[in-house]
């Protein structure tokens, strides 16, 4: 019973700039164990950048990241902030699963090979162990019959489910979804949706960036509306959607989506 006294993830004053553009502007966020957080907002509002900052695919200019209570990602040297050692960064990423909008499956490996790759190469499991983990994960996303084909033969929805299985095979403590259904044909969204839902039901902590309001409504414990690098509003789905009545920006955005 180690329900930690601290949140799983704690972001303080996260700031990311691209040249003159401030993509994320001093954001604070706490995500507790098992929480399902959905971030919505218009394109270019900094949602993806924030998500990518969490597993250090983006290097932030200011702020701190705490994962399971320990500060991660950056160290102070000579009173200057530097990225942590590559090994430490990789170790953090191994604990955080990420699913991309465009899947990024490894095209030269079979479906099984894709899912095995993390356990095999990063966790240094034996081939047999990695295969059994990967097989379990493919069963979970409902694609065990596709284990021996190459990604090129899969539909978009199947690719995304394989990508989820690949992330899950690392037994992550936190899952990041970066617009997981935005590149899919509408009729394929459902299957990916369902897979994420299953995960949520199992108690996985997750942060989902999406344009899909249905998602937010059904799944989220908390929804954050982000714009221009700031959190404009947050709360339970009901709270946010009712807050939208008073806020032109949010209402405008939601009306366009719904």
């Amino acid at each position, binding site marked *: 019973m180690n329900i930690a006294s601290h949140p799983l993830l704690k972001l303080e004053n996260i700031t990311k700039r691209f040249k003159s553009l401030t993509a994320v502007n001093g954001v604070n966020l706490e995500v507790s164990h098992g929480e399902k957080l959905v971030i919505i907002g218009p394109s270019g509002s900094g949602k993806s950048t924030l998500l990518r900052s969490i597993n250090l695919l983006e290097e932030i200019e200011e702020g701190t990241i705490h994962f399971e209570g320990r500060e991660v990602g950056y160290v102070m040297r000579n009173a200057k902030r530097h990225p942590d050692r*590559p090994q430490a960064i*990789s170790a953090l990423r191994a604990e955080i699963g*990420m699913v*991309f909008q465009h899947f990024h499956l*490894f*095209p030269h490996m079979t479906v099984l090979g894709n899912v095995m*790759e993390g356990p095999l190469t*990063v966790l240094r499991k034996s081939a047999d162990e990695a295969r059994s983990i990967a097989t379990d994960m493919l069963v979970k996303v409902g694609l065990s019959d596709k284990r021996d084909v190459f990604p090129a*033969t899969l539909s978009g929805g199947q690719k995304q489910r394989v990508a989820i299985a690949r*992330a899950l095979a690392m037994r992550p403590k936190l899952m990041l979804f970066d617009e997981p259904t935005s590149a899919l044909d509408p009729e394929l969204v459902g299957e990916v949706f369902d897979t994420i839902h299953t995960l949520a039901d199992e108690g996985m902590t997750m942060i989902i960036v999406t344009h899909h309001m249905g998602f937010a409504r059904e799944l989220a414990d908390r929804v954050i509306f982000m714009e221009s690098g700031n959190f404009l509003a947050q709360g339970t789905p009901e709270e946010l959607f009712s807050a939208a009545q008073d806020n032109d920006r949010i209402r405008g955005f939601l009306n366009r989506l719904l």
Partner: protein
Amino acid sequence: MKYTASRAFVALLFLWTLTGSCFGAVDYDQLFRQSSDLMAQGDLDGALALLKQVPAPAADEEAGAFVSSRMQAGRILASQNETVKAIAVCQEVLKLFPDNSEARNFLAALKDQLKPGWHTVLSDVVRFLPSLARGAVMTLMLVLCTMLVSPLGGLLIALGRISTLRPVSGVCWFIIWFFRGTPLLLQLFFIYYGLPSLGITLSPFTSAVIGLGLNYSAYLGEIIRGAIQSIDHGQMEAAKAIGMSYSQAMRRIIVPQTYKRLMPPVGNEFIALIKDTALVSTIAMVELMRAADQLFNAYFNITALALAAVIYLVLTTIFTFIFEKIEYRAGIYEHR
């Protein structure tokens, strides 16, 4: 000089046949004389044209003028190395006078003259093949050694160029800049003839492999760098996101995806390499080109060069075929 002499000889021949064989051909005396004059002036074509005016005789007619005109034409043609035409003239005579011994003998001699041509080529091939084959084996050794060394060198150079460490990328940039920017011939000379003055003496083979290896590493380095950078950046991110280090991501994810893209340009380079080994003949290596050159100089015979060309073509064809197969296999995951 030679030409005039042969013309004079033909003219003499002509006079001799004229006196010997035109007793009954009174009608054509004038014509024979004219053609003889033309020959004396060196106008062989004119003489030939005149001689051909003598018609084939009717059944009961005297044959002497016709036969001697055709035989004379045959000699002129033979003197011009027109053996095939000369044979045709002989056969024209033999068609009407199958027993004409003069035409028969001449024909036999002409056919003999033709035959040795093929015999010579064949015997040349047999004679040259062993030393050319030895040269080809040496060429193949050079190609294989370079093919072993340069992809590794190329990969290192490519990774170095991409590296964020300035000194590493600087050194790799320099290697590419230098070895692509100077002639391979000069590099070979420098390694084989120049290094001894620095106290480093290398055998021709070692020098050749080092020279070709460095040169091709530089070229392949740029090709591999391009291929690596053409892989979607998302692949590197996905690899990192599951916790891979940079080198794991390169080794397991990025580089394997470059293989298919690499095959066409690398195949090109290796075909060029097969031919570039010919440059090595300048640093005392006896490979295919040098072997052919030696034979050519010894016998002044282009068969040696032609044969070398055929061997080069065979080698490049084999390699082209192999690379096509590898390219197909390397990209098998893209086939739906």
